[in-house]
């Protein structure tokens, strides 16, 4: 089983050898020899994009860095990485240095961290060409050319700027221009659009694709966002626990997935087009050195049979793809079930529970919110959507009292709220609960889960110790965590489990209103699905009113009844979710919805007009 994608059988492809050929790549911890990545083989042809997808901890970034023959400290690489027939892993340090940047280029996740803030853009671009003499005959012409291709102004004015004088999207274009400057054979893109807004993301993706095509560059695109990858690449490799579990043409892998993990992952991706029940994948991926004997996915797999936990599966070839599952042929016959539609819930009317009128907020002198009106009705969920910088988090913080520099009127159950939490009554603080964005910082690492959950009960109620204990146990059950979590510390929990603890902490005091601020943005997609389901179930069971803040338009469908679109501090559109998403009126909403990638449109990233920024 030397190669997962062995296309030597195809006479057409044999004529053109692949630019990048990875064989039996294995990366292990130097200390213990535990396998981090194993048995990874794939090939990428000229002008082809391969997507490498997987959740955090799957080893996708480790593989991406290995393609530059680089491993983080404490990791050893073995196997073969051949670029145009040359094995990178056998090169000496000097030869490798010449190769990096010239023949293999890397685009990092965060351009603001990758560009030197003290050097002008022009200097940094020229530097890339200068250290690789021969890459371009005329450096200045090449720079103009490459800037034009990455849809940036090539005027001397832009070249004189410093990185902080560019927007996030422009910075990422500069990083891409730099990577393409020497006309490399291979370009490795490590989540290059993760920090960008959907619109910017779409333009950047289109740029990458057209540049790969026009220069015959082989590209490996690493991402956790399946919808983005689906629209961009022709081949996709799904990674789990350091191994490729399914690899093949994108339409096949995403259109009719076979491996149970791929199926689970796709079922977790929310769709902006339909209101569906999201299903996540319970459990956690194994850590290196603690992988089960058989298939690494078996403990979480609903298709698993006895043999799965005994024998390591080998890749099975089905059509154009390879699936690392011993039941692949059985599963292929079982149809890939589409998710259940959500029961339609009408948006509530009548008396609102929370009412905002003319709310204006500012940080220092900078105004963030302008005249925001908002109504949240009992027992219904209102989603507040907007890009970064739209003021949605500030709005949430005004409601809960974390941000007190605001004017206007916020009334809760008919009575006005004081601006800051310190000036609000205990009863009000109890009725409105807030869930933070990042579960890694919202739980005190020095307290057990039991302590974290019983604290609010001690503070707000006068229960006996027995009563507190039973309530804490009950709320843990409610968020699908068992009572064995009571004595654990937050650092023993995964991100999804932490966020569920945070949810439990909020609902244990039986509030009327739950304010959720981007609660899934730090989580993997399969965990996001589980978390959203827990929230949706709790909201309907406990008849909670909820404010759900998100930048992810697709997610809104699966949880909210009412949608509010926020743009630069102004509410531009309000209405029932279906109406806002299907018949948007405001041009901003229209653009926002068009730019959201959707898995249903695999391989169909629409061509965009040349950008004018």
């Amino acid at each position, binding site marked *: 089983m030397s190669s997962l994608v062995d296309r030597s059988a195809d006479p057409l492809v044999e004529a053109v050898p692949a630019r990048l050929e990875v064989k039996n790549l294995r990366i292990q*911890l130097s200390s213990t020899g535990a396998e*981090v990545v194993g048995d990874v083989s794939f090939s990428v042809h000229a002008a082809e994009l391969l997507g490498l997808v997987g959740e*955090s*901890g*799957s*080893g996708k*970034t*480790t593989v991406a860095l290995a393609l530059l023959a680089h491993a983080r400290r*404490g*990791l050893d690489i073995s196997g073969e990485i051949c670029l145009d027939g040359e094995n990178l892993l056998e090169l000496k340090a000097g030869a490798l240095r010449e190769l990096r940047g010239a023949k293999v280029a890397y685009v990092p996740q965060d351009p603001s961290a990758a560009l030197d803030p003290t050097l002008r853009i022009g200097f940094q671009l020229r530097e890339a060409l200068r250290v690789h003499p021969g890459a371009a005959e005329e450096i200045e012409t090449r720079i103009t050319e490459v800037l034009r291709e990455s849809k940036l102004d090539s005027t001397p004015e832009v070249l004189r700027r410093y990185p902080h004088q560019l927007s996030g999207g422009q910075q990422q274009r500069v990083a891409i221009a730099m990577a393409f400057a020497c006309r490399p054979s291979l370009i490795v893109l490590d*989540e290059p659009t*993760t*920090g960008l807004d959907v619109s910017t993301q779409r333009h950047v993706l289109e740029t990458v694709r057209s540049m790969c095509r026009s220069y015959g560059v082989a590209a490996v695109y690493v991402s*956790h966002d399946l919808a983005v990858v689906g629209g961009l690449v022709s081949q996709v490799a799904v990674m789990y626990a*350091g191994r490729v579990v399914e690899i093949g043409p994108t339409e096949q892998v995403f259109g009719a997935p076979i491996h149970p993990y791929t199926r689970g992952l796709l079922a977790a991706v929310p769709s902006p087009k339909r209101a569906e029940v999201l299903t996540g994948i319970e459990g956690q991926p194994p*850590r*290196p*050195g603690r992988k089960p004997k058989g298939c690494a996915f078996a403990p979480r797999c609903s298709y698993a049979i006895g043999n799965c936990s005994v024998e390591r599966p080998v890749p099975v070839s089905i059509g154009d793809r390879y699936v690392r599952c011993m039941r692949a042929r059985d599963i292929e016959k079982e149809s890939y079930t589409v998710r259940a539609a959500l029961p339609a819930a009408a948006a509530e009317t009548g008396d609102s529970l929370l009412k905002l009128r003319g709310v204006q907020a500012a940080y220092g002198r900078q105004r963030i919110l302008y005249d925001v009106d908002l109504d949240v009705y009992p027992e219904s969920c209102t989603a507040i959507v907007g890009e*970064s910088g739209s003021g949605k988090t500030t709005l949430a913080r005004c409601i*809960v*009292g*974390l941000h007190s520099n605001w004017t206007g009127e916020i009334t809760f159950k008919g009575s006005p709220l004081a601006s800051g*939490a*310190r000036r609000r009554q205990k009863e009000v*603080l109890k009725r409105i*609960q*807030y869930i*933070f*964005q*990042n579960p*890694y*910082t*919202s*739980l*005190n*690492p*020095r307290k*057990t889960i*039991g302590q974290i959950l*019983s*604290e*609010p009960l*001690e*503070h*707000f109620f006068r229960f006996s*110790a027995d009563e*507190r*204990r039973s309530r804490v*146990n009950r709320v843990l059950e409610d968020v699908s965590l068992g*009572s*064995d979590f*009571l*004595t*654990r510390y937050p*650092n023993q929990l995964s991100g999804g489990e932490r966020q569920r603890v945070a949810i439990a*902490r909020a609902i244990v005091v039986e509030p009327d209103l739950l304010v959720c601020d981007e609660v899934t*943005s*730090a989580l*993997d997609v399969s965990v996001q699905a589980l978390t959203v389901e827990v929230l949706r179930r709790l909201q309907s069971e406990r008849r909670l009113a909820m404010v759900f803040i998100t*930048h992810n338009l697709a997610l809104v469908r699966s949880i909210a009844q009412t949608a509010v679109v926020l743009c630069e501090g102004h509410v531009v559109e309000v209405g029932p979710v279906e109406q806002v998403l299907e018949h948007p009126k405001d041009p901003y909403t229209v653009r926002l919805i068009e730019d959201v990638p959707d898995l249903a449109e695999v391989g169909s990233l629409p061509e965009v007009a040349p950008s004018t920024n």
Partner: protein
Amino acid sequence: MDVVTSPPAAVSPPRVRRQWVDLLGAVIRTRRGALGLALAGSVVLVAAIGPFVAPYSPDQSVTFPFAGPSSQYLLGSDMLGRDVLSRVLAGGWELLLMALAATVFGVFIGAAAGISAAYLRGRVDGFIMRTVDVFLAFPQLVFALLLVSIVGPKIWLIVVAVGFTHAPAVARVLRSSALEISERDYVKSIELQGVRPAKIMRSEILPNLVSPLMVESGLRFTYSIVMMAGLAFLGFGLPPPAPSWGYMIQENRIGLSLNVWAVAVPVILIAVLTIGVNPFTDAIARVAIGLDSRPDEALIDDTVVEA
């Protein structure tokens, strides 16, 4: 809190020990921590059991002054003909206890001031930190000398004086650490419950300062020892004839050529102690930081955090 101490019996959670037991266990397993503990521990052992095993009375002359080592007096005798070994064994525990007390006192005051300044901000912050600046302008030893020379050498006063000189520096360091903790979401979440600031500082912020607290305590402990020995050397320690490592150095240095051990042994013990304490507390700090992260996971893929 009650929930934690008596978990429901039905489930079988992984046995959870108190966090600090894990912490100390992990510290001893590090090379740094084991080395520090071995060095400092041996000196502490000498000081602790010394008074009980001393062969002679530390205050009585047993032979002629500055006698060299002999089978009878292993480290020879001092300026008044007292047995050096007995004085060394008997004179350590007082120094250690005083240094410990001064450290606890100084770190306590400094931490209280630093954390309050960081969490309460505003005028409280300004007042505390400007006061700290004023005190930092005095050289530590001069400040302690000043206090002791006014009131006279009393044990409690030396402890308070040395401890007090530590407080400003401790406050500075802990303020900066506490500033960052104060902005964390779990602190905000408790604030949203309307909990009193004093309780937030005690139960949310303080437990997360273990790492800087340990480093500071170790550092201040060694400073305390050096300052106490220094005060004794300058004659501001306990009045003679009480045995004290610091004062031994001062009173016996005139006989350095006759019996070097009367000076060298206290010097070596103080040096080994101060050298040992630092790697030990440093190891605690490192392990405390490490416990909060999951190193094997961080090595594989960074957690995705979107904007």
